[in-house]
């Protein structure tokens, strides 16, 4: 867990996200098919840098979780059926 980001930085990040979603709303309203496709591909796809959740209480950020460090497909880590089962048809 990283404690590097300050509370202020996270609040700014939150506000930045809100304004991004407004920008997209404005864009999408008048977008033709070509632009909608671009929006979907470059804004919804591609490699993403963050993968985190911030948990808080009473508007105070307390816990930062990088779930990608925790969750993974079991068969990738343990092997298919943890070696118990072979390919079944």
């Amino acid at each position, binding site marked *: 867990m990283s404690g590097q980001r300050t509370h202020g930085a996270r609040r700014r990040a939150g506000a930045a996200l809100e304004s991004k979603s407004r920008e997209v709303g404005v864009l999408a309203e008048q977008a033709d098919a070509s632009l909608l496709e671009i929006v979907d591909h*470059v804004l919804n796809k*591609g490699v*993403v840098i963050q993968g985190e959740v911030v948990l808080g209480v009473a508007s105070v950020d307390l816990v930062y979780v990088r779930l990608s460090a925790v969750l993974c497909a079991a068969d990738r880590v343990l092997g298919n059926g943890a070696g118990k089962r072979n390919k079944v048809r």
Partner: protein
Amino acid sequence: MKLLVYAIARSAPRGKLGVGVQREALAVRAHGGLVSIVGKVASSPRITEESLYAHDRIVRRIAARTSAALPMRFGSTVVDESALERFVEERRGEFVQALSKVRGCEQFTLRVFVDASRALERPTLCTDGPGARYLRARAESHFPPEIAQLRALLAPLVKDERAEAHDVPPLVASVYHLVPRASRAAYRALYARGVQELASARVALSGPWPTYAFAESA
């Protein structure tokens, strides 16, 4: 200043990189077997028609000039060089795997539209219990049965396939195909044939795209 990241690749793209979304100079950073293509910017790019198209253009240019590249999502930034290093190191294994998958390939995107309210009852094996039927239905919500024939027709040319269900009628799903560049013409020809056979669905094909939908491991 921060770094805007455009793509992760196996090797530096050939030729001139051009400029980024904010007309900043693009640069290549080496990460021992991987490279990132970045631009130094003062602030995150605003989302405008121009900037989104620019991002796609830049990603296409990179993809055209290197053997394999993973497009980054628009506006991906890291605070500095060491953050960039950490980002690449943390996901190195995943990137290497994804890069070998998308090597030499591009993406076609199919949007699937179905007008009629879809029949919930589908012929099932009488040996299937309710659990199996449920799981099968969930699987089909991602890959709509209306395009099963079309997908089967295209399958020999499709290296990998991903799908997303939508619940905004008539849009029911998006299907993403990873297709070797060498098969582009053949894919288009097969698609043109197969789309005529569609009975209860409309499909809109777009592409070729850089491999946006195959950049993240799923």
